[in-house]
């Protein structure tokens, strides 16, 4: 067991909910860089590191980690409030894979040495992590991954390729899913490996996406030597750990924030385009509004479960489905009313709030990442509705 002294000396769980909310809100408002509110694109490390360091210095970087690991140890109810305030203010997502994935992974499955080595460096911002999951032939069917790690004495030799690795160019460490047993059933030969990105044999190539942004990368591994002590948990049991970590992602992807933000911009655009008063627009707008409100209620019912300390089941896929498709319907409506502005590369009139094309393009991957919506429907039909395979 490691013991890290938290930067935040007080146990914030002792505050009542409203006091806590106000406390968090005030601090965010006076510390978050104004020019980075609701950024139109995912920020790179050099842009978002001042905010990361602010959070780290305050001791608020890892609200969900236990206090003895340097986190805030917030109760589920307080974590929800914390997240709501971050989202309300439009704070950019940081390079948070260390915080939300590696930290919980090591806290639950890591050795004391791994915890001691890696957790403090996430908290200090010295290690920025990226996630090596998807491969060219293992996207929706992630368990088909083929990047292999072969044990050679006390070292794994890693060969293969990862893709859609978010912000890999900013990261100096990578947590990898690798195949360590080629003969086992595909889910049962996968292990978790922690890899220093400076190791010889690693090549990172950015991918330019439809936003003309280099958010994703390909990462190539050519005889990369990784110490065997960097394997997390039991060899060949990595899949179960990975699945458990994804439950965070599914509720995060179901949060109404993207749809709510786009919906507010839709109104601004309609007013600018002079269609706000039109009955036909009001009809579509009203329907979208009702969908957004009901999404909030549905999200609230899942959040209530978390608040009661329950774990979420596969039915949380419903949120991801409805949220992402609503986000797309809102941005579809933006293009429809934008006239020839629907072909602009940049925001209209240099106004970030009038950015129909940017929002439309940003909405595209929402139904693809985090398990495509087709995969989410498969999950629902098999694991919630009990329909036969």
């Amino acid at each position: 067991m490691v013991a890290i002294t938290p930067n935040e000396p007080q146990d914030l769980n002792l505050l009542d909910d409203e006091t806590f909310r106000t406390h968090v809100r005030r601090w965010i408002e006076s510390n978050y860089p104004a020019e980075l509110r609701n950024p139109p694109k995912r920020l790179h490390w050099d842009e978002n590191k001042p905010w990361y360091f602010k959070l780290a210095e305050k001791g608020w970087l890892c609200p969900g980690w236990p206090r003895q690991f340097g986190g805030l140890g917030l109760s589920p109810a307080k974590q929800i409030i914390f997240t709501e305030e971050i989202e309300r203010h439009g704070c950019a997502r940081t390079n948070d894979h260390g915080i939300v994935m590696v930290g919980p992974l090591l806290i639950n499955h890591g050795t004391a040495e791994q915890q001691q080595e890696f957790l403090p460096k996430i908290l200090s911002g010295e290690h920025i992590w990226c996630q090596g999951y998807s491969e060219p032939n293992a996207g929706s069917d992630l368990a088909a991954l083929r990047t292999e790690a072969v044990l050679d004495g006390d070292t794994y030799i890693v060969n293969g390729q990862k893709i859609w690795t978010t912000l890999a160019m900013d990261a100096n460490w990578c947590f990898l899913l690798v195949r360590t047993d080629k003969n086992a059933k595909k889910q049962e030969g996968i292990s978790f490996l922690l890899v220093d990105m400076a190791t010889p044999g690693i090549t990172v190539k950015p991918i330019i996406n439809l936003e003309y942004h280099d958010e994703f990368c390909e990462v190539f591994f050519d005889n990369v030597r990784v110490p065997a002590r960097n394997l997390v948990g039991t060899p060949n049991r990595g899949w179960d750990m990975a699945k458990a970590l994804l439950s965070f992602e599914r509720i995060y992807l179901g949060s109404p924030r993207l749809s709510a933000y786009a919906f507010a911009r839709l109104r601004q655009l309609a007013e600018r385009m002079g269609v706000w008063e039109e009955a036909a627009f009001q009809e579509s707008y009203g329907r979208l509004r009702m969908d957004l409100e009901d999404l909030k209620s549905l999200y609230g019912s899942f959040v209530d479960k978390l608040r009661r300390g329950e774990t979420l089941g596969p039915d949380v896929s419903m949120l991801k489905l409805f949220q992402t498709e609503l986000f797309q319907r809102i941005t579809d409506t933006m293009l429809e009313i934008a006239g020839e502005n629907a072909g602009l590369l940049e925001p209209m009139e240099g106004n970030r709030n009038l950015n129909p094309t940017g929002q439309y393009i940003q909405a595209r991957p929402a139904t693809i990442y985090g398990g495509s919506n087709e995969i989410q429907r498969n999950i629902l039909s098999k694991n919630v509705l009990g329909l036969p395979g």
Partner: protein
Amino acid sequence: MSAATDDRTESIRMIRDSAGAVAPRGGDSKRVRALRFASPGFDRAVFAEMGALGWFGLAVSEDAGGAGLGLSEAVALAEEIGAGLAPEPLVPAMLSARLLAAGDDAALLAAALAGETVVLTAWQERADTLAAPGTPDAPRVFIPMAAGADTFLLPVREANRIALHALPAAGADLTLEKAMDGGTIGTLRADLSRTTRVADDVGAVLEQALDEAALATAGLMLGLMERAFDMTLGYLRTRQQFGRIIGTFQSLQHRAADLKVHIALTRAAVEAAAAVLDSGATGAVRQAAVSKAKHRAAESGMLVLRQCIQLHGGIGYTDEYDVGLYLRRGMVIMNQYGSATLHRRRFMALAPEDVE
């Protein structure tokens, strides 16, 4: 969880259990079918049983003889009654009890609460409205299950208030039309020479009671869609074509997943609205919450019900197969206490947007 939430969870569970005894989920379609198109379209003994269980006064205060519970309980009950397809006019009876509790006729209130007297409120003067103007001589339309009424309640406008009158059904000038689900829909001539006054001013309570009725109707729809969807899943798991169980076809699986999302949205909207009303919300906050729920229930409910017919194929189009009973009931209740369009417009007019 707080003690109050625990109590609430427990009272909702008890109400669901007792509902199951009177109207088992989809378990008694023989009874439901036997009552169709046979006057009065429901079973007075079952109606009386519902009264004896305290259902009509669930949200009526204990002082007035009700159970003193809230809308969370009422929508849970409505959901079970919807799932069980019980034709007895539960929501109209709740509405009447609410109004009588604000009046002076203790005997009629007691009989209505007990289910001994079927009291239906003839508040509506036109299609698709939540307004009860109480125009003294206006015919009252779309009275659900009117064939079974013993007494009608009529809101009657007087200067700047709305009085409540009671009109005996015997001898009333009532026209009946058959409803799609085998019940009746009545039009009543408002003959004020035959009425007795039971309350001086029910304007505010009527507005609230109509909102509660709209929300309870959303609960009925939730029960209908859930039960019809369960039947459909059962069919998808067993029906074979092309040598395969049809539930293995991905196009059907994905459609089923989408319907499940609509059911979840409806439940979330209905339960959230009930919680808003139970917190004592009034005015625009109450109306917006109710409209959100009734809008969702009408839209998503009918989507699920018609897709359930489609997913069954030809058998779903027969009167003999039960899934059609749910669609028929859905058609009868979808626009009661306001259509999706009415509620969407009301919500948009009332609910301030979050400004970001």
